[in-house]
């Protein structure tokens, strides 16, 4: 099975402090460390597990710039066969629709049975996968937490829905799935693995190679644009209890008892 996983390099939420910069219009980017979007990593691991069971290859692709190559290499160190960088100045400022348009052009240059994305990235959008599917006219399922290959034509998948329940679906190939965290336990990629793939050439495809109409991508085509970042003015928020721990414990007990907290 030929699997494509669309990945993204993002500032790591646990190793960074996301703060507003001094000018107040963007996040502080000075000291950020980046890594692969956590959801995408689960998707790549899932793809690798599928091909280890039934054969095939895994391609990882990202829309970005030179800096984003490092996540492609990391996923190749993990086991992905091919890495592709989709890059062009014309792509700058694309919104989710624009990214999906670019990816669609890329997908149509190859032949993929299954396309995976993570459910969402750091902006919490959760849009690219679904848009890509509609553009390709492939069926789509989001929040996938289990994949079983039925045969060349279809998969049995489960989606994570409310209450911890799982919605079981059958979906025809080719399709697009967005993968939820926890679907598997991603293998570790050590520095050694990354070094071993450090010199593997990664092809770069731009707008001309993909036959993209400049009107359909980039900032001019984007209907969604982020204006700024800000930290909301603190609302009233909680009444913070003050005093020694003993005093707080007393106060809290009174409150809990008053609100019916003792059963």
């Amino acid at each position: 099975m030929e699997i494509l996983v669309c990945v993204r390099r993002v500032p790591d939420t646990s190793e960074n402090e996301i703060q507003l910069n001094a000018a107040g219009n963007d996040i502080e980017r000075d000291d950020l460390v980046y890594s692969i979007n956590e959801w995408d990593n689960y998707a790549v691991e899932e793809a690798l597990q599928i091909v280890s069971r039934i054969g095939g290859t895994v391609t990882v692709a990202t829309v970005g710039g030179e800096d984003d190559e490092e996540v492609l290499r990391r996923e190749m160190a993990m086991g992905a066969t091919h890495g592709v960088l989709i890059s062009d100045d014309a792509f700058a400022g694309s919104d989710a629709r624009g990214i999906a348009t670019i990816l669609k052009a890329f997908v149509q240059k190859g032949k993929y049975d299954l396309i995976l994305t993570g459910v969402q990235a750091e902006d919490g959008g959760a849009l690219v996968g679904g848009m890509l599917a509609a553009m390709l006219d492939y069926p789509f399922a989001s929040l996938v937490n289990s994949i079983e290959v039925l045969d060349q034509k279809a998969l049995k998948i489960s989606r994570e829905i409310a209450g911890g329940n799982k919605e079981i679906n059958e979906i025809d190939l080719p399709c697009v799935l967005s993968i939820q965290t926890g679907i598997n336990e991603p293998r570790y990629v050590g520095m050694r693995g990354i070094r071993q793939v450090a010199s593997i050439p990664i092809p770069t495809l731009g707008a001309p190679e993909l036959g993209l109409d400049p009107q359909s991508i980039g900032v001019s085509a984007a209907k969604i644009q982020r204006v700024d970042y800000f930290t909301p003015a603190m609302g009233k928020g909680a009444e913070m209890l003050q005093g020694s721990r003993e005093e707080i414990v007393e106060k809290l007990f009174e409150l809990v008892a008053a609100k019916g907290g003792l059963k």
Partner: protein
Amino acid sequence: MSRIFAYIVHKAGVADDSAMELAAAARKLDPTASVTAIIAGTAPDLDAVSNGLRNSYGETWKINNEALGYPNAELVRQAMVKVLPAGSIVLVAHEHFGIDLAPGLSVRLNAACVSDVLAIDGLTGSTLKVVRQEFGGQISAHVNCDISGGAVITVRPGAFKPLETVAANGNVIDKSSEVGVLTAKRRYLGMVVAEAGDVDITKHSVLVSIGRGIQEKDNVAIAEELAEALGAAVSCSRPVVDAKWLEKSRQVGTSGKTVKPKVYLACGISGAFQHLAGIKGNPFLIAINKNPKAPIFQVADVGIVDDLLEFLPEFTNKVREMRSVSTK
């Protein structure tokens, strides 16, 4: 002004709570416009829902189709594309169905798409300004959307305060005939219900809820002791389940259970949206967290900045002490 539609999710003949939140969002978007509810499914549930919506929406469109016995976003999308006028603005709740439906729908309608909107600042011409969050809620952003060709907007559940009654005796229009035969390359097979687990947290009115701040499995006992002293149950946020310190049945949140307790102690929980979305009914929320900047303090009623591993045992002792006194 384009028409505003709100896609309403329903279960067992009852519309989801988000129905009124979407109405509020629509009102914020354009106070002058009237908003139409759209529901899809099969009779008799569908009719029960549409009747229920008469008190909330001036107009409800219902799509009755045998393929829609279970809400399959692939099929619903097809149906909606058939009935929606060009340039429509569609609101849907940002949860597992909305996430499935919205992106593809926006492509089919050739409309803009913006997701997980927390607030709507206003409309200037055809530019809508909304508020979203990024980086797991650590920072907020203003986003401009060009809605000249229509839009699909998913709204964060609980972000918009539901409107009180809006309309009385709204219309219900049956749009089923415009839809035709629905086929999709994705078929619903069934549901696997989460295991019951030993404790049903949805039945408890007092919950001691723990998050990553509990730090390790052995410390869960600290929460259990407090719960025992209070006569409460222990629940948790997702990281605790991922780390396998508690079973899934204890998880409160979008991918866990929805609870409606009277008192909720959030211990070592940062306050990520996915967790808070599982708490309904506006309980008395107490937050205990080492980090004074934790987002939970924004939504809690009472906040305590302290190490929960030290605070909870002391509080447990206090509860035990006071309860033994009161029984005398």
